[in-house]
């Protein structure tokens, strides 16, 4: 084995360099104003891979792991996209989808939902952006447990493999809906009630195990491995978003794990955790005495925080993108941080608003409607702050900014329909209609996706060293943005006239006539939006070959990830010496400053003449 450990001894060197001991004099070379406490954590030993396998496959570099997560999540997401195409084909043009049975349709609905929520968005935000950005943004050399981090990715890999294997087992994947409600999830008659649901549960358990390993890494890196001068309140909001989302995941995934495990036992061993006494074709089944609603509680105790696991990193990332591209400090940084933390905390007390029609005690509905609507307060604060950041900003209307604006609009739209659904009395008639579909796709599908797209255009120059093409990017944005609205806006109307979700076809109901044309329109829009994503793939491939080189800090940003000695950053991130942080990452357009940005590593003595805030 050619393992080699490199112990950089920068720790000693650093601590003696920047301290000016003694209060008044400036005995060292560094002015007192620039004094930062010496390093208290020793340099991290890193394992540097030497072969192709240790460098690119079983790699312990968080950046490579981040890209691996990103690529695998995107691949899974594309499968989810294709499944949605098949669903839309059936709904819009049933005569063209003759190959599809009702069973297929339910399986596609289920797999589309589960893939998009868990294996695409969660993995992409936390595994992808989290791994790549956390060590760079807080100024550490790597995640604190690189080996664990690698295992985390490969657990995710196996989880995806098990999930996709369910397409090829007898009975196919489960068709129980992404919520996997028992009893129907494991009863004969539901597609994939044997192997399909079993593989789904196993895959989820693997995902949770893998995520726990990654999540511990993110949390400890943020809490215990920041660089000198990097306080929690100097972290970019991206890190705050990912941090809070990871805490939510660490506390919410256990419920999914337990629910999945109990369902597996019901399925395989014939226990009756979730199975009540059931009559089937006049015969009483072996099951009896279990509680289906218990599963719903477990599932949604995971399921609702899951929404914010996806949304909070998006909130954080979009705040940074808006601030950089509007050349203005983020409005109300502290408020933004507390809003993220507050939303995260509240998200554990709202889960049963998914269960208003489940038959639970009606007083529960009263309680959960109240908590749900309280979440609107921190969320609205964030939206106002984004808008106030843009206000009188020096806006660069590039592709990144377009995605950010698209996000704000879409998020507000989806949030407002959330007020409808959060109220019990309004929710009851709208339950299980297309209104719900429209709401959650807008708020946690399209809106975070817009942020992902913006983030891709923003950080691609860092990852690959080249700019993505703006013109292609604008085509990509407008087709996606307008297309997404064409898909989901009509769905609100479909919901109002009562079209139920999860129906394979509409049969001869009175609302069918007005719904048919609309369904065709939605389907066409869905095909176009899906195809428009090819522009991005083409753009990436093209850019890797002939894109404009980006160089150092191409967006004139302040945060640490842009300040690495080499672009793209190498393993270990910072070369010889770790950066020293003197301020928050939002010092844009400071009056009196030479340039319109002051990086986090700029010492106060260099900008003494400016009206920079103390952070």
């Amino acid at each position: 084995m050619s393992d080699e450990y490199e112990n950089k001894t920068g720790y000693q060197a650093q601590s003696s360099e920047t301290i000016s001991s003694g209060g008044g004099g400036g005995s060292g070379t560094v002015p007192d104003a620039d004094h930062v406490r010496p390093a208290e954590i020793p340099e991290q030993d890193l394992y540097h891979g030497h072969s192709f396998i240790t460098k690119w496959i079983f790699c312990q570099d968080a950046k490579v792991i981040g890209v691996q997560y990103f690529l695998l999540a995107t691949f899974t997401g594309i499968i989810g996209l294709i499944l949605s195409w098949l669903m839309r084909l059936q709904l819009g043009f049933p005569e063209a989808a003759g190959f599809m049975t009702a069973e297929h349709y339910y399986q596609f609905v289920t797999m589309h939902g589960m893939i998009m929520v868990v294996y695409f968005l969660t993995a992409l935000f936390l595994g992808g952006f989290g791994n790549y950005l956390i060590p760079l943004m807080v100024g550490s050399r790597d995640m604190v447990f690189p080996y664990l981090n690698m295992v985390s990715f490969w657990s995710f890999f196996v989880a995806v493999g098990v999930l996709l294997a369910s397409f090829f087992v007898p009975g196919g994947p489960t068709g129980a809906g992404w919520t996997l409600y028992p009893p129907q999830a494991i009863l004969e008659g539901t597609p994939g009630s044997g192997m399909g649901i079993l593989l789904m549960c196993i895959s989820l358990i693997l995902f949770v195990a893998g995520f726990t390993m990654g999540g511990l890494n993110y949390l400890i890196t943020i809490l215990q491995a920041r660089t000198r001068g990097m306080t929690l309140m100097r972290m970019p909001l991206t890190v705050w978003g990912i941090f809070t989302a990871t805490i939510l995941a660490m506390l919410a995934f256990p419920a999914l794990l337990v629910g999945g495990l109990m369902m597996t036992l019901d399925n395989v061993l014939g226990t009756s955790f979730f199975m009540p006494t059931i009559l089937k074709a006049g015969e009483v089944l072996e099951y009896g005495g279990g509680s289906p609603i218990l599963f719903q509680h477990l599932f949604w105790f995971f399921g609702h925080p899951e929404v914010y696991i996806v949304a909070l990193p998006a909130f954080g990332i979009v705040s940074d993108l808006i601030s950089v591209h509007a050349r203005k400090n983020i409005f109300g940084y502290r408020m933004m941080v507390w809003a993220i933390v507050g939303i995260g905390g509240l998200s554990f007390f709202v889960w049963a608003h998914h269960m208003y029609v489940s038959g639970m005690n009606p007083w529960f509905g009263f309680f959960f409607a109240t908590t749900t609507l309280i979440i609107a307060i921190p969320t609205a604060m964030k939206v106002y702050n984004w808008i106030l950041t843009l206000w009188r900003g020096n806006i660069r209307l590039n592709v990144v900014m377009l995605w950010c604006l698209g996000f704000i609009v879409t998020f507000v739209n989806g949030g407002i329909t959330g007020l409808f659904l959060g109220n019990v009395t309004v929710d009851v008639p709208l339950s299980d209609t297309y209104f719900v579909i429209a709401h959650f796709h807008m708020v946690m599908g399209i809106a975070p996706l817009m942020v992902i797209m913006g983030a891709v255009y923003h950080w691609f120059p860092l990852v690959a060293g080249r700019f993505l093409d703006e013109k292609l990017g604008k085509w990509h944005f407008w087709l996606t943005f307008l297309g997404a609205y064409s898909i989901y806006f009509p769905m609100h109307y479909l919901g109002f006239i009562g079209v139920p979700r999860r129906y394979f076809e509409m049969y001869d109901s009175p609302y069918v006539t007005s719904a048919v044309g609309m369904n065709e329109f939605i389907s066409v829009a869905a095909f176009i939006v899906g195809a428009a994503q090819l522009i991005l793939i083409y753009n990436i491939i093209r850019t890797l070959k002939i894109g404009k080189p980006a160089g150092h800090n191409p967006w004139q940003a302040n945060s640490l990830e842009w300040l690495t000695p080499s672009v793209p950053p190498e393993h270990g991130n910072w070369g010889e010496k770790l950066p020293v942080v003197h301020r928050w990452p939002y010092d844009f357009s400071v009056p009196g400053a030479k340039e319109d940005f002051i990086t986090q590593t700029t010492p106060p003595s260099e900008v003494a003449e400016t009206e920079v805030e103390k952070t």
Partner: protein
Amino acid sequence: MSDPKIEGYEFKPGFKGMAQDTGSDQTMFKGVHWGKAMMWIFLLSDTFIFSCFLISYMKGRGSTLIDWPNTSEVFSLHVGSTPVPLLLIAIMTFVLITSSGTMALAVKYGYEKNRKMCGWLILATAIGGLTFVGMQAFEWSKLIHEGVRPWENPFGAKQFGSFFFMITGFHGTHVSIGVIFLFIYAYKTFKGHYDEEKRGWFTTMKGDYVEIEILGLYWHFVDLVWVFIFAFFYLW
């Protein structure tokens, strides 16, 4: 425990100190080993797993229509011909709690760099854990012999068997994993890996006696969970 010495950083007592640590740079928990902080957060997550199990159990037991079996009968052992309720479980609990004591002593001797004592105490802890798992296997086989299965139960509600085997099984898995690690750590202690700062098999970190404390945290947690399982299953 006294505060660690950190150059250029002055600790404050109480809540003020907590606020100062939180607001400071580099680390939030001053002087706390990365692995130790990780174990605490992992245990918090694991707490949620066991809470979900136990809450599900309460819900299942509360809503079943068939009577729950009388636990002091089901879990009793016959000494001669007189049934003694909770006999086995009392011994099991005693063994496990005692192993927590030996673990704590192992941590103490580890920090004192007393390699021999530390190693023997870890070994004692491992054997305590192994005894516990063995007695649990005995209890399982006794119940299975009497006809209790995850899917049926001759003494009453079938959820009894389901929850009992699932939750004690999940806890037993935790204990077993702990025992495996205890044996590995005992080996490493005796070999002097922690004195020589030898690197682990899978990690780039240097060996340090703090690892024994980290394993100890896990072990105490597993014991604490057992107290709850004991209360909810055997005393309710």
